[in-house]
């Protein structure tokens, strides 16, 4: 019996069965010394949109055997064969890396001779390859209209519609999909909105013939006024919150949600240098703390930038051909296409309780650049042969304490632990200092 093992596009997919252990995070935020995963159970979606035209690219974090992979996505219109495409996974990796929150480090100059050096550290995302066993094809309708059936790349795709959710639910169950309790009404509400269901699974013989050993992102182009991502199916019977990364590529500017608050993540903070060795742990804790502060009811902005450049760059901007493949149809083949593309990276942790309705977006005219950026400033360790060095050392200890407090505030970590890790002395409290000393100090 086939199983659906992951949220597979947790925004869009019908989550039929969950196997959390098989999943590993794939998005970026790695430092050179830390290649552990950051966020589990995460999915990535690229939305290239201009006017009513949308190209949706869905990257699966599926780590099991392709035989057990399937995805069921509500789509707003009928989808023809030409509207479906299979993209290269490297595109998702690239846009992930380009937009990843980044750690940059500065080195304090010799206090006796001022100069600054900036060394950006790019955090590139790494996605593990998945193995590729076979998967059976099947297409049998029971009370369901199979509007179309395609094989695109290594995927067998069905476009389904149904008069009632019961019919589709029965069909899916009888064809080996494990439908979670409570999915029926959700399917029904999409059917009543005249949405179709896009069902994809891996065609093993095609996959073998093509030689891919991993699941490539699926792309769908459609024209609809609906600028939204249906997340409700992914939350049915889900085992805990899920992570979703949305990369929006637009012509005019930043994308935000209209039915949930979009919040900029704290950025630009100076952190104790020891964070360099454990940036993923910091970022995960910081994100969790922000989610708590917003009562898990907000969508977070991690990056908003004109695609033509970056500063500092976590990865090179995407080329015109990459953008075109991701669905940027409005720039043509202009080599400077990036100047006409604005990228927004949104990160949301959601569950059914806090995100009862699907995400609805709007494109704004905001082209102000924003990036998740965290700063390390290394102390000057050379000689201190000038009077300015005395002042420098005094301000340095104050700075270190401030950095520790910033880290504590951002992550919720105990300040005592941070001071210990950063080898900072415990600053005297005002109670510890005799009051008369504070008068004439």
């Amino acid at each position, binding site marked *: 019996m086939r199983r659906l093992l992951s949220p597979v596009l947790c925004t869009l997919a019908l989550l039929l069965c969950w196997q959390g252990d098989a999943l590993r995070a794939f998005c970026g935020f790695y430092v050179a010394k830390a290649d552990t995963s950051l966020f589990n159970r995460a999915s990535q979606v690229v939305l290239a949109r201009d006017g009513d035209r949308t190209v949706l690219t869905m990257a699966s974090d599926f780590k099991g055997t392709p035989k057990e992979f399937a995805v069921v996505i509500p789509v707003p219109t009928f989808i023809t064969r030409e509207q479906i495409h299979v993209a290269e996974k490297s595109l998702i990796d690239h846009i992930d890396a380009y937009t990843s929150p980044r750690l940059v480090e500065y080195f304090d100059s010799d206090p006796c001779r001022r100069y600054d050096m900036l060394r950006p550290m790019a955090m590139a995302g790494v996605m593990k390859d998945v193995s590729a066993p076979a998967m059976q094809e099947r297409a049998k309708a029971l009370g369901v209209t199979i509007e179309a059936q395609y094989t695109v790349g290594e995927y067998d795709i069905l476009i389904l519609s149904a008069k009632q*959710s019961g019919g589709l639910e029965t069909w899916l169950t009888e064809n080996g999909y494990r439908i979670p309790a409570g999915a029926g*009404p959700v399917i*029904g*509400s999409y059917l*009543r*909105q005249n949405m179709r269901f896009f069902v994809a699974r891996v065609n093993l013989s095609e996959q073998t013939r093509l030689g891919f050993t991993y699941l490539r992102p699926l792309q769908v182009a459609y024209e*609809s*006024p*609906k*600028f*939204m991502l249906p997340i409700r199916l992914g939350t049915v019977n889900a085992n805990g919150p899920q992570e979703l990364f949305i990369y929006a590529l637009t012509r*005019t*500017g930043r994308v*935000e*949600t*209209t*039915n*949930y*608050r*979009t*919040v*900029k993540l704290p950025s630009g903070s100076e952190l104790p240098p020891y964070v360099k060795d454990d940036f993923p742990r910091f970022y995960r804790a910081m994100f969790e703390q922000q989610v708590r502060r*917003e*009562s898990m*009811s*907000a969508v977070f902005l991690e990056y908003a930038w004109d695609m033509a450049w970056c500063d500092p760059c976590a990865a090179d901007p995407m080329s015109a051909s990459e953008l075109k493949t991701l669905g940027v149809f409005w720039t043509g083949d202009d080599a400077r296409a990036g100047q006409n593309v604005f990228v927004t990276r949104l990160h949301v942790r959601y569950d*059914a*309780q806090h995100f*009862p*309705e699907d995400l*609805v977006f*709007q494109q*704004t*005219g*905001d*082209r*102000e650049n924003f990036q998740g950026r965290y700063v390390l400033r290394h102390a000057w360790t050379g000689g201190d042969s000038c009077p300015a060095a005395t002042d420098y050392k005094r301000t340095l200890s104050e700075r270190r304490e401030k950095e520790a407090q910033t880290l504590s505030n951002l992550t919720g970590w105990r300040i005592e632990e941070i001071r210990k890790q950063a080898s900072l002395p415990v600053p005297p409290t005002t109670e510890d200092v005799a009051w008369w000393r504070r008068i004439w100090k």
Partner: protein
Amino acid sequence: MNLRFDPRLYQIAVLSGLLAYGWAALGFDISPARAALLLGTCLATQFAWILGRRLPAFDARSALISGLSLCLLCRTSDPLLAAAAATIAISSKFLVRIRGKHVFNPTNIGLAVMLLLSDAVWVSPGQWGNPAWFAFLMAGFGFLVVTRAARADVTLAFLCVYAALVAGRSYWLGEPSAIPIHRFQSGALLLFAFFMISDPKTTPDSRAGRLVFAALVAAGAWYVQFRLFRTNGLLWSLACSSLLVPLIDRLLPGSRYAWPGRHSLPPEDVSHAPTPVSRPVHAGPASVLAG
């Protein structure tokens, strides 16, 4: 109706409080300089029209209300576009008048025109989030108390019709009740219902007319949002429905709203007055987003 004090002061206090809350807690994307620009442009435009038409008195309160409302709603990176929205909002009160009554809620038309003209202007309906919802509700009801429910009928009718449409659609789709409840718990919706649609200077004069008007706005907003799948349904619907107010007033006549302490004037008196903007042009008590 005589009120103990001008409810516009309450409006200004509420709007200022919301702006402060937006700055302090919600990280509103509007700088103090931008707020000063919007407020300054509204006041200057009002002053210019008063001066140009040789009207007897300059009243800053309604212009301040418009300016504060734009601070809460109007988002753009371009200061010129922000100033244009403020200018259109205030000027509409002086330029677009039928039978002595201005047609559009100033903030509403200022935003609608700029949204139509430029991609670089937007409104962020999600900016309030849900936690502030209860505070909005309280501020809104407080406003009804202060105005002695001068235009509570239009607010309540709008909320009832809109809620019925949203809940009805969810019921028909088989959605869980959490979805319509989440849609009602919107700061933007309550701000609109209590402080924009209730503008006594642009709503119909008769109660029956106001009920019809409220239902029209609610139906239009629902249609834009849930049938056309466009944002800002509330703003578009109010702007379009306002065009029908003169017709509604003709079919369902009533007495014109007047300031607290003043007698209502029949429409003829206003339209024939040599300086019509001196009295009812200023935003009424319930026109927080009108100005």
